Structure formats: structure tokens, C-alpha cells
């Protein structure tokens, strides 16, 4: 059996790329990361591999492209069986997929509303964001992880996005820890995990990156 060739079209600050890198690390699968320069010209390979959206991450497995971070993480989970990222039973899987969908629909957009706004708009954006975090904290409950005893699919999808939370907190003048301490504790715990710590960019660098985007969007 030949070696699997895995290439990830990547961007250092992307929470979505982080998800895939964490999943691959959890599975102990080697891959090559190719950095895309999203602001100065996307590569031919990216445009060819993801013609619909031209977005990262893209996972190329033996040349075949898989797109959309949540779908890539599912693909990684199904292709390399162990450790399993989803619970064994159908209901547990369905719950995980429901929350993955909620996270994908709500978190990044709410966070973006924070750094893209000022004044009254910012206050509204903050409120909505914290409501979403509260809902997630509620779902976490007293479990160690969203999937139960072990770090899994939902944790991976969410912790990638958490890499931008520090920046949201700074732009919005709030602390998730004050509003949702259980959520903050879960995040802290995950950020210490090797597969996560090796992937998540430094908070200061993310803050600078978002500050640059704010400037580009004329918000200051």
C-alpha cells in the first residue's frame, strides 16, 4: 500500500484551517501545509481545488480535494478511524452534528459583527455573541467535553473559532470568563491539549491581524 499524500491549503490565522490541523494531529496523520496568501493572490491550486468558494481550508488527499472545514473534519474522522471523533451511537452522532451546525451558523458571524462595528451596533453584537456562548455553555453542562468524556468533533470545530475570542474580547471590552465561566474553563482546557496548542496562533498576532482587517474595512 502506497503512502497517502495529504496537502492542506492553509492560512495561519484561519480558525477553519485550525480545525483541520487539530483533527489531523488527533489522528496522528502527517500532512504538508501550504500557506496561501489570501490578500495578495490565491494560488492556482486553490482556485482549481475549490472553484465554488476559492476558500481555505482545502484538504487534498492523493490529489482529490475535500472542501468546507466541518466536512473535512468528518472526512478525516471517517478515513482514519482512531481515535473516533464522534460518539459511537447514532443519536450521539446526530447531537454532535446538530451542534456543529449551530456553531457553524452562529459563532463566526456573531464574532465578526463585534470587530466590524462600533458604538451601539457593537453593544448589540456583543449581546448576541454572549447569548450564543451561553447556549453553548448550557449544552456543555457538566460534561468534560461537548462529546462527553473525550475531546471530539464538536470540541474541535469550536476550539478553532475560540482562537479569535481574545480579539473579540479586546474589541468589545468584555471577558467570556466573566459571563460564561464553564465555557471559559472548557476552552482553557482544550487550548492546553497538544494537538490544539501546536496549531492555535498567538492571541496577539490574531489581534493584530483582525486590527488590520478593521482598518481595511474602514473601522477605527
Amino acid at each position, binding site marked *: 500500500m502506497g503512502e497517502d499524500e495529504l496537502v492542506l491549503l492553509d492560512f495561519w490565522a484561519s480558525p477553519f484551517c485550525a480545525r483541520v490541523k487539530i483533527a489531523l494531529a488527533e489522528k496522528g496523520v502527517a500532512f504538508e501545509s501550504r500557506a496561501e496568501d489570501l490578500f495578495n493572490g490565491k494560488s492556482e491550486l486553490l482556485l482549481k481545488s475549490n472553484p465554488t468558494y476559492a476558500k481555505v481550508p482545502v484538504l487534498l488527499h492523493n490529489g482529490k480535494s*475535500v472542501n468546507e472545514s466541518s*466536512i473535512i473534519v468528518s*472526512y478525516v474522522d471517517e*478515513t482514519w478511524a482512531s481515535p473516533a471523533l464522534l460518539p459511537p451511537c*447514532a443519536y450521539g*452522532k*446526530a447531537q454532535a452534528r*446538530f451542534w456543529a*451546525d449551530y456553531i457553524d451558523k452562529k459563532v463566526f458571524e456573531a464574532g465578526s459583527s463585534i470587530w466590524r462595528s462600533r458604538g451601539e451596533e457593537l453593544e448589540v453584537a456583543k449581546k448576541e455573541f454572549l447569548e450564543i456562548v451561553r447556549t453553548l455553555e448550557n449544552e456543555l453542562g457538566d460534561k468534560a467535553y461537548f462529546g462527553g468524556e473525550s475531546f471530539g468533533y464538536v470540541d474541535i470545530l469550536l476550539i478553532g473559532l475560540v482562537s479569535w475570542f481574545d480579539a473579540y474580547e479586546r474589541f468589545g471590552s468584555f471577558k467570556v470568563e466573566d459571563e460564561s465561566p464553564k465555557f471559559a474553563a472548557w476552552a482553557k482546557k482544550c487550548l492546553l491539549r497538544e494537538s490544539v496548542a501546536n496549531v492555535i496562533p498567538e492571541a496577539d498576532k490574531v489581534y493584530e491581524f483582525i486590527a488590520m482587517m478593521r482598518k481595511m474595512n474602514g473601522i477605527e
Partner: protein
Amino acid sequence: MAAANDVKLIGMWASPYTLRPRIALNIKSVGYEFLEETLGQKSELLLKSNPVHKKMPVLVHRGRPLSESLVIVQYIDEVWSSGRAILPEDAYERATARFWAAYIDDRWFPSLTGIAKAQGEEAKKAALAQVHDGLGLLEGAFEEISKGKPFFGGDRIGYLDLALGCFLGSIKVSEALNNVKVLDEEKTPGLAKWAERFRADEAAKDVVPDTERLVEFVKSMFAKK
């Protein structure tokens, strides 16, 4: 074999999202109790079963609720695994099916509702063009994925067929109310023929709403507003 009251589906005959699990349950030959919602009046059961989104469809299996139509379809596929498979066997094909289903929900369907929302001729034309562009992408996907077979799923309806097929009624409504041609056999011949096969399929034909009834229903909804 599950007793009919072991499986309940909260939904509504006109809702495209409700169609997805209904057809999935038909594919698996699973009986279920259909609890119909009245539009505009969410039932206690719905609110209790889907507190996060308060939307249908909700599948209640052995008393446990599940929401989000595509999540429900995957659950049905996994629980009733002895029935015909809905998702492809191969992981890469599964990823491709999920990709296009997400595209349909996140991009294409919102563009369809954009036609009705567009104000004025120019805006309507632009909105329609967007829908056609999307269908063009889906036509390409259909050619690639079906590999000459009648459905995205091959010989029979599968996950991606369900994801798109549930909106055939919405397409007809859009065409009737806006006086436009959305699914055009000249622009997307593959999909146009696929649509007829979908409506005629065993698992779909009894639950896909009658076009006239659906158009009248949507008209009456706008009249009430």
C-alpha cells in the same frame, strides 16, 4: 421493526425541509406518526423538542428529539442501516454529497428566495440570474456525480437528491408567483429530467406536495400578511 408510534415526525406538508426526513423514512420503509404543525402557531411539542431553533422538522425517536433536516436524514440512514443506504458508502463521495447539500442550503436556496424579495425588474432579473448560475453549478455536479445514472445517488434517490429535490416545489412556486422560468430544460437539461424522475420516485411521489395546492397555499400566506 419499529412500531409506527416509536417514530414521530413534527413537520408540515408544505415545508421543503420536512420532505427530507419523510422521503428518507420512506426509503427505509419505516412507519411514522406525522404530527402536523399549523403554520404561525408553533405547538408546545415543537417548542419543547427544538428549544434552540424552534423549527421543524423534528424527528422524535424513542422519545428523543432531533432537529435539522440533514442531521435527521443522516441519523435515519445510520439507525435503519439494513434498509437501502442514503449516503454514499465511500468517504470521499460522502464528503462531496455533504459539500453540495451545504451549498444548496447555504447559497442556492437563499438565492431562490431572493427572487421574490427583489424589488423591480432589474433586481428580479439579477436575482434570477444568480439562481440560474447556481443551478448551472449543480448541473455540473449532477453530471459528475451521477456518472450517467438517473440520480445523484445512482440508481435510486440518495442524500444529495433529497437535499435538492425537496425544493422542487419551491421552484414551481417561484415560477408561478414571479412569472419566471427557474428550472429551464434548455439551461440545465440534466437537472430538468432529474426533477421529473425525482417526483416520480417511489419514496417521493406520495409526499412531494401537489404543485397547484402548494402555489395556492403560498398565495394565501402572502394574502394574510
